[in-house]
């Protein structure tokens, strides 16, 4: 299964999920598989995808949140699994595309190419976790997540594939569209202050 196949498989299941996606190829593939306002595409801050998703899941227990991370990215911030494991918001799903390589930067091998086990790391930190290798397995894992509603990490072994497009490069547009879709719009127009939980007027 290529990463773009796996992304298409995930996208068919997203429905009301808010998605935070890792920069580079995972973001490009998600955009091609189906752009939606509820996708937060990162263009930098490598490693922070699952951390951003954790914050979002804690802020919005009413929404299901999925982080679409990569093996190289998650390895850059492995400590966040410990934080996620101690917070355990039940509405948070971590999906890790594990192609065992830094796909966006030329395919250099990551530690998972030499046996590092990200699902094992997630389990050790208190998350439900599993590794899937086929589209069927991935689909069944997603069924399980929907049934059980526990903080879960699914590591999906994928082959690298060339992305066929890129999301918008306007970071503020991505953010404002995302927040509006989640029902917490920023002011949006010049002169208006931010509406996020403003303190009451004196």
């Amino acid at each position, binding site marked *: 299964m290529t990463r773009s196949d796996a992304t298409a498989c995930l996208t068919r299941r997203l429905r009301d999920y808010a998605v*935070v996606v890792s920069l580079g190829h995972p973001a490009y593939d998600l955009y091609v598989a189906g752009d939606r306002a509820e996708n*937060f595409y*990162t*263009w*930098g*801050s*490598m*490693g*922070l*995808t*699952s*951390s*951003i*998703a*954790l*914050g*979002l*899941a*804690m*802020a*919005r227990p009413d*929404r299901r949140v999925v982080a679409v991370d990569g093996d190289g990215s998650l390895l850059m*911030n492995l*400590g*966040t699994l*410990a*934080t996620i494991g101690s*917070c355990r918001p039940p509405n948070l799903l971590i999906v890790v595309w594990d192609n065992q390589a830094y796909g966006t930067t030329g395919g250099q091998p990551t530690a998972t190419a030499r046996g590092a086990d990200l699902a094992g790391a997630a389990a050790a930190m208190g998350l439900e976790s599993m590794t899937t290798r086929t589209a069927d397995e991935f689909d069944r894992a997603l069924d399980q997540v929907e049934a059980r509603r526990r903080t879960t990490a699914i590591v999906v072994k994928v082959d690298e594939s060339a992305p066929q497009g890129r999301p918008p490069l306007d*970071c*503020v547009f*991505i*953010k404002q569209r*995302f*927040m509006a879709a*989640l*029902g*917490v719009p*920023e002011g949006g127009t010049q002169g208006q*202050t*931010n509406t*996020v*939980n*403003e*303190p009451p007027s004196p």
Partner: protein
Amino acid sequence: MSDPPITPITQNSDSCSAVPPPWAPPVCAGLAASAIGHVVYVPDNPLSHLLAGLSRDYPHIRQTPATREEEAVGIASGLYLGGVRPAVLMQSSGLGNCANAIGSLLVAYQIPVVFVMSVRGDPGEWNCAQVPMGRAVHPILDSLGVPHASVDRPEEAESIVRAICETAFSARVPAACLLPRRLTAGE
């Protein structure tokens, strides 16, 4: 001058159980008045007074410890995207651990996160390893375009925190409130 004696590891909880230092309650009050809803932190001794004060006086403000400052910036960003005003509490040395996250996430996406940083490496520092990064704190904040203000006296603490929060959430920029050693020393 000789190094301070090595303090036992229980110093933290001991120092928190007593009367809080005069600067701590107004910093907490400033965060609460600015509708901060969630604090993400990497601990430091002076910050322990803020964490204790927030727990005691503003228990509605949630607290989450992060493993690293960069991670804290990520979590805080997610909180903001979900409609909660976030603050990150950390030692200034952690600024080096999160510079890229401030630039490529907070500044690029205009995500306001309020930082409260206990400063190391500034005048009064005894640990030579803290001094080089201490010199870099202001230049890093300035070069990333992060507005910042230092609390020099307890009487101005609440108004400075409120002003930093106002700038952050109105202008949608990360902004930092610095707690220098001359304010926090002796704890």
